[in-house]
């Protein structure tokens, strides 16, 4: 099947000092996304897993073009999105949406729920009658579980709970029937009891609306629950990617194994021998300055001489499972 | 520590602002329709300059008969470097520069001591109010402070005049020294100066005090909400230590920057109060200049005062960065 989005050799770096007149020796270049390539297929949920500061949010923001990269391409329907102008760009906005992390911040506190959710319709469906727009808004609010939707129309975000707000954000992202939705840790700020329901709603939307999700999370358990495919992100680079069951059942990169081992087991007694290795180096600074060699080398228990000088290439483990590690060749 | 690079950057910044003030001083009289400076000059300074030779000399020095503004501007800058601000119409034949320099010490005495007294006691009052935050006393004095800080300075002076110089004549109503007196020694001279300066300085201090007090109070209230304050209290430190060494010390530094920013108020207050008390400083001179349409003198006063405020601001800024270890020097 043809991919919706194809990411090729994407690089994004930030300068760690501010000011437009000053470029001096103190300036530090942080590579948040370093030569990343992958693709997203239609009707697929791809989970991006990484710790905070790994650059996963930057990756998400690049895909919806909130940021411009230093180099590399993102192809949408065969066109590089960073070259799109006005009308093509609007068309891209219509098809690729994003759900933001903080539900308390992502709705304008001054506007009613209806005003916020109807906004894309006002932009893309200028000729539609107000009544039709309202009906579509109601339909979408009900789809994300806000029932009865009429009661929410004129409420302000301040009158809603965090879970309700995040549902509104989802409804707003879905209203133009996009092809891809990037969800940046959409449940991390919600109570644990609400998370499963919202995640299930998103999974259901994938089937009813023919939409793909790029699901960004720091929690590998959620990633496993959500994703058809998984992409393990470490310090701006993909260390392992593939089919969810393949990656979870046969974690190949040392970092993936570390992630899976750090999930608290349900029965600690039985799980003890499953803990295959202990992390000794500990967590070092999270700034991923560009350097030669594997980015995980300083923390890796299996580190070899060449890991520090050369960066490993991607190696196929099985048909849909690739890893970047010298342990596999 | 302050790096040399930081100092140089601040210095360049302050020079740009000073250059801006100098340029504004050049442009102002020239964009006003009718150009009162030249009209008045050619009319002999409102009839006060009787000497056509002087008029011819000024015209030449400032290039006033040449309509090319860039030419005039370059001459203006050259004359400025030599301290030539023109000749005062009213105090002819004195130059503007000498008139201002003669009066500047009185203004500095007034503004300087007024600011110091107001800032010092304002900070103490602010500490007291912040510590008593939420009590009736706090809201009463804070309200009085807000009220005083909106009242024009000269009004406060007028009330003081009525209270202390008219009904009960404790203090003189005008002048910086008693006219026509010869002093036996330096102490009686200084005593006379202080006696005359007392009401003007008090007026200025009373007018400025609420500005600093409210600033200190509000900053300290914010500081008192911080976690380290709870720790200090929980540690069982005595109240006086918590109040002065923890809350007040952290709040006082931001207030010093405010002292710099408030210099504009100080200047405005000093100018009005001098006029009210007929105190022979720059402010009283400015009033005389306005009454007599002495435009060169007005411009000169604006320029000198601006440059002094800009310089003082720079000094406060540098002082602040020395005092506050938290300031990020980039």
């Amino acid at each position, binding site marked *: 099947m043809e991919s919706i989005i194809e990411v090729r050799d994407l690089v994004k770096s930030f300068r760690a000092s501010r000011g437009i007149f000053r470029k001096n020796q103190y300036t530090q270049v942080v590579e948040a996304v370093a030569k990343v390539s992958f693709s997203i297929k239609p009707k697929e949920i791809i989970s991006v897993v990484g710790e905070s500061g790994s650059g996963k949010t930057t990756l998400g923001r690049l895909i919806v073009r909130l940021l411009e990269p230093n180099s590399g391409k993102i192809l949408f329907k065969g066109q590089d999105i960073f070259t799109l102008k006005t009308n093509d760009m*609007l068309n891209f906005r219509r098809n690729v949406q994003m759900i933001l992390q*903080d539900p308390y911040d992502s709705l*304008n506190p001054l506007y009613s729920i209806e005003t916020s959710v109807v*906004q894309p319709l006002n932009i893309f469906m200028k000729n539609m009658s107000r009544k039709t727009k309202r009906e579509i808004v109601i339909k979408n609010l009900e789809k994300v579980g806000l029932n009865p939707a009429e009661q929410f129309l004129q409420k302000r975000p301040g009158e809603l709970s965090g879970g309700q707000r995040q549902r509104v954000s989802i409804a707003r992202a879905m209203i133009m029937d996009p092809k891809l939705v990037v969800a940046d840790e959409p449940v991390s700020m919600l109570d644990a009891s609400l998370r499963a329901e919202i995640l299930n709603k998103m999974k259901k939307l994938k089937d009813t609306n023919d939409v793909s999700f790029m699901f960004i999370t720091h929690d590998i358990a959620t990633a496993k629950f959500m994703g058809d495919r998984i992409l393990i992100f470490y310090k701006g680079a993909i260390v392992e990617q593939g089919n969810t069951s393949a990656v979870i059942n046969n974690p190949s990169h040392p970092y993936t194994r570390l992630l899976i081992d750090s999930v608290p087991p349900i029965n600690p007694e039985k799980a003890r021998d499953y803990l295959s290795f202990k992390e000794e180096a500990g967590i070092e600074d999270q700034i991923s300055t560009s350097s030669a060699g594997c980015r995980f080398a300083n923390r890796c228990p299996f580190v070899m001489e060449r890991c520090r000088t050369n960066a490993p290439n991607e190696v196929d483990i099985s048909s849909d499972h690739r890893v970047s590690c010298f342990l596999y060749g | 520590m302050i790096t040399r690079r930081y100092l140089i950057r601040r210095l360049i910044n302050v020079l740009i602002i000073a250059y801006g003030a100098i340029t504004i001083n050049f442009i102002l009289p020239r964009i006003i329709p009718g150009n009162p400076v030249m009209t008045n000059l050619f009319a002999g300074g409102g009839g006060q300059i009787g000497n056509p030779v002087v008029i011819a000399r000024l015209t030449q020095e400032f290039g006033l008969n040449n309509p090319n503004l860039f030419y005039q501007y370059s001459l203006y800058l050259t004359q400025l470097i030599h301290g030539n601000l023109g000749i005062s119409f009213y105090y002819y034949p004195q130059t503007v520069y000498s008139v201002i320099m003669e009066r500047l010490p009185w203004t500095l005495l007034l503004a300087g001591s007024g600011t110091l007294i107001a800032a010092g006691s304002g900070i103490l009052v602010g500490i007291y109010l912040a510590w008593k935050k939420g009590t009736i006393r706090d809201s009463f004095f804070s309200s009085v402070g807000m009220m005083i800080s909106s*009242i*024009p300075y000269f009004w406060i002076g007028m009330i003081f005049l009525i209270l202390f110089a008219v009904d009960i004549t404790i203090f003189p109503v005008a002048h910086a020294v008693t006219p026509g007196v010869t002093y036996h020694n330096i102490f009686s001279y200084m005593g006379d100066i202080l006696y005359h300066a007392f009401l003007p300085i008090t007026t200025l201090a009373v007018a400025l005090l609420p500005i600093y007090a409210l600033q200190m109070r509000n900053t300290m209230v914010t500081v008192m909400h911080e976690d380290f304050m709870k720790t200090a209290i929980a540690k069982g430190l005595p109240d006086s230590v918590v109040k002065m060494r923890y809350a007040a010390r952290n709040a006082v530094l931001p207030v010093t920057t405010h002292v710099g*920013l408030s210099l504009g108020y100080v200047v*405005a207050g000093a100018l*009005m109060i001098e006029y009210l008390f007929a105190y022979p400083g720059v402010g009283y001179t400015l009033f005389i200049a306005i009454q007599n349409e002495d435009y060169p003198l007005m411009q000169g006063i604006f320029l000198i005062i*601006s440059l002094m405020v800009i310089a003082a601001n720079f000094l406060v800024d540098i002082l602040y960065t020395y005092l506050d270890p938290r300031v990020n020097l980039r």
Partner: protein
Amino acid sequence: MNNGRVDIALQENNAIIASRAKRVTVALFKSKRTTFGVAVLAFFLILAILGRFIAPYNPLIQSGPLWSPPSESHLFGTNYLGQDVLSWFIIGTATSLWVGVSVAFFSALIGVSVGLTAGYFGKYTDEVLMRFVDMLLVIPAFPLLVILSAYLPPTTNSTILILSVLSWPFMSRVVRSQVLSLKERGFVTASKLAGESRLKIMFKDILPNMLPIIFINIIYLVIGAIVAQAGLAFFGLGNINSINWGTMLYWAQIEDAAIQNAWWWIIPPGLAIGILGLGLNMLANGISDMILLNQGR
């Protein structure tokens, strides 16, 4: 979807809007400070609007003996020409408030435009504009005001123009920093993602969210302008023949009212400015507390 449901929804919504308006009003009067502020403002506004009907005498004609202290026929006494001080005060309220309000309006207009431009375009536009603003903030305003007033024709409109031109820099700094912080908010990102244009985001998402802060600074501008006008009038600048609180103090000083011990002539205008300043400050503080409370939830 049937029409009935939508109609019912509309009715319910109107009820919600009505209750929200009520809640804001209640919140405004619940705080003693804002109530005081609104009351002071209302009092002076009524004086300004109905002044000519309330004033007991024509302030420009002699209506009693010269320099007479407060009495039954002249509640605030008379001045050196035997004119009624109370009538001067009441009639003068209108001009003083008018100067305050119009200066606040024009400088808010300039300040908000400059602040939005700097925040919107950023980079070099921002750098240049803010350098200029910094310069205006450091150069002492009062001597500059004096010089400009001395050059321009002595009318109230000149005073309004001069004060407007010099009062806006602080507002522009506030607006700019608000734009910069609101730009980073999630709902602005959400609007961007929806495909909204930058200009519309500025006026629909960013500007409305800083209206309370703009309003607070407008209040400060009003009181600042009234005080500055009084200061200029005291120096004999502006239209000294107009009747306002500033010119009252100018004539009192020229005629040596303090030396004459005519406190009844001096106290009303100064005290009025003080009370108005206190009321407006309380209103501003109350509103900023309400903003903080709103952000807290």
